[in-house]
Each structure stands twice: as C-alpha cells, then as structure tokens.
C-alpha cells in the first residue's frame, strides 16, 4: 500500500487504525497527531455544508446537522477541489437518512438551499431589453412558438412541502412565530432568480413553476403553458421580466 493510500484511507474512516510509518520527534504515539488531519478533513467539509445549508441546520439543530453532514462527508467526499460545488447529492442523502425520517420536508429544504448556491455562482447574463420583448410579444399569432432562454441562474423547485414558507420563516426576526403559522400539509413551489448580486427566492404557484421548468427545458411558450396546471400566464411572464430572468427569445 502506498504511503498516500494508507494515509488517505483512514482519514474518512474513524474506526480504521492510524496508518503505519508515522513518527513523532519525541516518540509519542502518532495517533493523536494523525487525528488533527482526520478532524481537519471532516470538520472543513461539514463547515462547507453548514455554510450552504443554514436553514436545514436551523431546522434540525447544529448537533444533528453536523452528525448528518459528517456521515455524508465520509461517504461522499468532494470529487473536485472546487468546494462551491460540494453538496450536490446532499439533499438525496438527507432524504434517505433514517434519523431524519420524521421531517419529510427536510430533504426538499436542503434541495432548495442547494439550488440557491447554484443560482449564486451561475453565469451572468443581461436581460433581454424590454423593447425587444414587447416587439416579440406583440405578434400574437407567433406567441405559441416563442422559445425563451432563461437566465442561467434561474432555478425552480416544486415540492410537496411548504419549503418556501419554511425558508422565509428563518429569514424573519421571529422565526418561531413564523414557523407556527405554516401549514405543513401545503405543497409549495419556489422560483430562484438573481436580484442584483443576491438571489431572490420567491413563492410561485405550482402551475407557474411547471411552466417555467418547461420553458427552461426548451419547450415553446404554447406547449409549456398548456401542459401546466392552471396559472396566470401574463403575471408569470411579468414576474420573469421584472426579475431580468429572460435572456433571449426567438420564434421557432
């Protein structure tokens, strides 16, 4: 076994023995020294997940979150040195994490926070000038065939749980009061868009979320609107325009 393999192997395995071949100048047992590396690796990865999932952590408490994130980190260490992308897959892990089974909304909340990270770091794009939008929308006969390129940072999430209300409650001064007002049976959908240098997280009707999702997938306007549950099409387009979320439109 190579030195590196032996050293790496035990880093993510708390029960594995300290690798052989280590020494200390004073002859002390190297286990405690090696533990510094073990600790650094897992703590830094858990810290990264805690940074990107603050509401998930608030919902379960720090101790529970760190134990859960630590298990994820040991099982699924990053595959890239770009840690901004560490956490993809965390929501799926949370969904299957038995101790969290009593919180059915937790995985979608983690998913929402992950989408927020993606929106944060996504490519920038200028919105389509309103005059061009107006010209394209004026031709009513061509409307169904319009294809819309959404801003690269835009994300939608449709959840069977009130994830937007849960997230918003943790942004308010009185989180406990806001949480008390939530209908935990309600399904909610989220739209994430750039808001200057920040990311805005908005609640939209499930039908509107489905419509936006289909636009993002490349469906033409008419097909995207028909396939979704009832929703207010002009209001939804207005919402996208107001947030600079339409980067291009073309007739196909």
């Amino acid at each position, binding site marked *: 076994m190579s030195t590196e393999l032996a050293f790496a192997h035990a880093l993510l395995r708390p029960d594995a023995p300290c690798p052989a071949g*280590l020494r200390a*100048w004073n002859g002390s047992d190297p286990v405690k020294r090696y533990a*510094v*590396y073990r600790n650094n690796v897992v703590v830094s990865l858990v810290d990264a997940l805690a940074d990107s999932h603050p509401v998930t952590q608030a919902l379960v408490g720090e101790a529970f979150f760190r134990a859960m994130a630590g298990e994820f980190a040991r099982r699924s260490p990053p595959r*890239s*040195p*770009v840690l901004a992308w560490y956490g993809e897959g965390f929501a799926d892990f949370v969904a299957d994490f038995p101790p969290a089974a009593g919180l059915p909304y937790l995985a979608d909340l983690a998913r929402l926070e992950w989408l927020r990270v993606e929106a944060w*770091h*996504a490519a*920038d794009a200028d919105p389509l000038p309103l005059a061009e939008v107006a010209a394209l929308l004026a031709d009513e006969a061509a409307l169904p065939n319009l294809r819309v390129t959404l801003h690269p940072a835009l994300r939608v999430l449709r959840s069977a749980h009130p994830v937007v209300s849960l997230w918003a409650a943790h942004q308010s001064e009185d989180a406990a009061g806001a949480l008390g007002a939530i209908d935990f049976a309600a399904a909610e959908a989220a739209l994430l868009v750039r808001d200057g240098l920040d990311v805005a997280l908005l609640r939209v009707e499930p039908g509107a979320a489905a419509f936006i999702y289909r636009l993002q997938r490349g469906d033409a306007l008419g097909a995207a609107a028909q396939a979704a549950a009832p929703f207010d099409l002009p209001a939804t387009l207005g919402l996208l325009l107001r947030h600079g979320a339409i980067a291009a439109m073309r007739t196909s």
Partner: protein
Amino acid sequence: MTSANPHRPIRGGAAPAAHATLPARGGVGLKPEHFRHILDTRPDIGFFEVHAENYMVAGGPFHHYLERIRADTPLSIHGVGLSIGGEGPLDEAHLDRLAALLARYRPESFSEHLAWSSHGGAFLNDLLPAPYHAGTLARVCAHIDRVQERLGRRMLLENPATYVEFEASTMAETDFISEVVGRTGCGLLLDVNNAYVACVNHGRDARAYLRALPLTAVGEIHLAGHAHDVDAAGAPLLIDSHGAPVAEAVWDLYAYAITLAGPQPTLIERDNDLPAFPVLAAEARQAEIVMARQAALEAA
C-alpha cells in the same frame, strides 16, 4: 512604509502588466464578508490574496467584487487544490481552470502548497503531508515543472505546517525545499506561521529552520494565527488554524525572517473566526512596521 520594490504597480493606472511582482507591503486575504466594506472604503492595502478554487465558478457576486477590488490593488492567487505533493498525476482539468482564472485576473503572484489533497478521485480539503525522499522529490519537481509550463509563469511553493513525520523520510524538509527550488526554479512562499508550527511540532529550532531555507527565492510571506493542543506525550502540538491573530512568537520569527530575506510582500491569512476588516488591516500595517523598523536598523 515605502517599498523597496521597483516593480510596485502604480495604483489607479491601466490594467496591471502580467507578472509584475507584489509590493513589499502588508496584504490581506480577501473574504466575501469584507467585499462591500473594501469597495465602500477603498482601504490602502498592499495587496489582496484569494484562494483560486473559490473563484472557479461561472459568475455571480464573487467575480463581480473581485474584478472591482482587483482593478486598483495588486493580487495574489493562491491555490489550495492542485495536490502538488500527490503520488498521482496532476489534475489537468483543474490546471486548465487555473490557467483560465489567471488569464482573467492576471495576478502578480501565483502560489501553491508543498502538500497533497486529492487521492483516488476524492478531494480531501486539507493540506496533507508526504515523506521527504527521492521519490517524492522527483514527483514534486515534475508537477511543478508541469504547472509552470502550463501556466507560463513561475510559481511560489509554500512550506507546510505538519503534525506528523514519516519513517520513510530521508531528507530534512529544508533540504527537500531547497532541492525543489533549485531544480524547478520556482520561488518560495515562506509561511512563517507554518514554519513556527512545524518546528514546535517536531522539536526543531525555528530560526535554524529559516536559515536552512533558500531565502533568496522568497517571493511572499504568510502570517497567520494558530491554535494550541498537546500530543500523546503532553508536548505542545500547534494547529495551523487561521482562526486567531498572529501570535507574538510568530511576529518575532517574522522579524527574524525579514532580517534574512529583506522586506517581502506579507499576507495576513485569516479563514476562521473572521474579524472586521480593520482588524486584519491593522495586522497588515504591523507587518509594514516590522519591515520599516528593520530597514531603519540596517540604514543606521
């Protein structure tokens, strides 16, 4: 503090020339928590340093702020993910990302670590140690040759903070680093806190350690805080935490390093328990005071 460095970029001028050098002043690690404060107050800081990997994202606020802050302040880009000390080949895709980032920001300095952080496709997010022997030396030199060739520039290599040593080591760390610098032509990023931490952790004389390094190759100095623990025998075990002010003992060692290496671009690194920006700016000024005091002593 006046700089003895003739290559000091002129503030507020045109885009800085590629590969100009950092000024021999105090610098501060740039953190997102301080973006707004820095743009609003435009503090007089010798240079900023960022971790390369944090900016390997497509867009968003990180690039927005770095572009604006970099426009009138020298920049050091410091990699933490190349795994130069690793047994496997370099990650060429990562090297490509690095080349793109350097082309975009044209930093005055690029540096990386004498350490490894990836194994078997997993990134372990820590700077891990390697034994010092001929095999590691050959690999590290080949990796640095490749990095310098791909990036088209000289890099600085940072001495590590370590907690264990290897029975397989046949060379002192200082000899290993001297060999790497001699063979590859890379520069040395002298991390004085790492030197102090490693010397305490391995029962060495920190001043002798500094004297044994190839100090003419120093292109930058790092200063940071450390934490205190003990090993299994109760001996002090210092942890390179980057979570505290620079320790007095490290300031003393820094003053000694300056007497040996002359004034150097000196970075205050702080990654944890981040204080308000002026606290870090004051530590950067402290480094400039140490350099000025040393220059005055030499002139006297």
